[in-house]
């Protein structure tokens, strides 16, 4: 899949041609620089590595400074590989703008790191129902998980039993978001609905 790296800006809503309100996420994408082209012969598989996000040279390690120098570009924050099936052929050092990859009406998948929710119980974390009653003997267990297994057999708790714990802050993909608008002047993409992550976090948009 071809795609681009972007930065989540925030949400707003705009109106479509029928006057319907569409909730939109604004993502700043591109121009992404091609920093490496991997080929079947050399690397065993073919892909394109793109880079996005400016940073100071003193904050980047020597190996990566050499890597971006090869592509004749400035130090970058984020490097991601995509399949090499962009509509136009790409060369090392090219910068790919948002309107070269996406058009209005496309459906895209967005990958990001979800917002960290901290230590959460089973009702929020796994969608358990809780007890659902406040009478009939219940007094302190409305959001508890209930039984986590039988007694004598198996006399242990199965691995992978869903329990309370850390939630969020993981790689999350949202599929089939519609591209509502492509703004080439400001390198913006308006996607219908929400995307994972907090504001100013990096997201990967795949076509």
């Amino acid at each position, binding site marked *: 899949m071809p795609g681009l790296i972007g930065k989540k800006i925030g949400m707003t809503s705009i109106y479509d041609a029928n006057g319907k309100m569409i909730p939109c996420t604004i993502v700043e994408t591109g121009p992404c620089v091609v920093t490496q082209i991997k080929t079947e012969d050399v690397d065993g598989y073919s892909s394109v590595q793109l880079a996005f996000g400016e940073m100071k040279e003193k904050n980047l390690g020597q190996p990566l400074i050499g890597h971006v120098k090869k592509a004749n570009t400035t130090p970058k924050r984020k490097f991601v590989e995509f399949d090499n099936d962009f509509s136009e052929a790409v060369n090392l050092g090219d910068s790919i703008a948002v309107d070269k990859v996406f058009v209005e009406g496309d459906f895209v998948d967005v990958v990001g790191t979800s917002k960290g929710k901290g230590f959460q119980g089973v009702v929020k974390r796994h969608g358990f129902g809780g007890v659902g009653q406040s009478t009939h003997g219940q007094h302190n267990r409305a959001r508890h998980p209930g039984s986590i297994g039988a007694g004598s057999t198996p006399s242990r708790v199965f691995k992978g039993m869903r329990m309370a714990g850390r939630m969020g802050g993981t790689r999350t993909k949202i599929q089939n978001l519609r591209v509502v608008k492509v*703004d080439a002047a400001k390198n913006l993409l308006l996607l219908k609905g929400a995307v994972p992550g907090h504001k100013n976090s990096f997201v990967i948009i795949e076509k």
Partner: protein
Amino acid sequence: MDIVSYVQDQYITKKDVPEFSSGDTITVYYQIREGEKVRTQFFRGIVLQRRGAGATETFTIRKMSGNVGVERIFPINSPSIERIEVNKKGSVRRARIFYQRERTGKSARIRERRG
């Protein structure tokens, strides 16, 4: 918020709406699409609140339909709003007059603001 306001300026056409606030009685003329046909309906009631800022601001208005209270929320810049008429300026002390929902009859009256 710089880019967000740029997107709102670019893709939302701002409407010229008269000034109104909570407690005012207004009439909203809005379009209803039924298949191909477009007709205009109006909704007249008391403004309970204005909410949000900028291009995505909305307002809530409430009217009594017989004995039942009906509330509608409109986005201020919605393209389906044709025009808004301010019928009466009400004098209230709050920006959000949700207490109006519990009131009927004499206590539901709102004093008119002069000048």
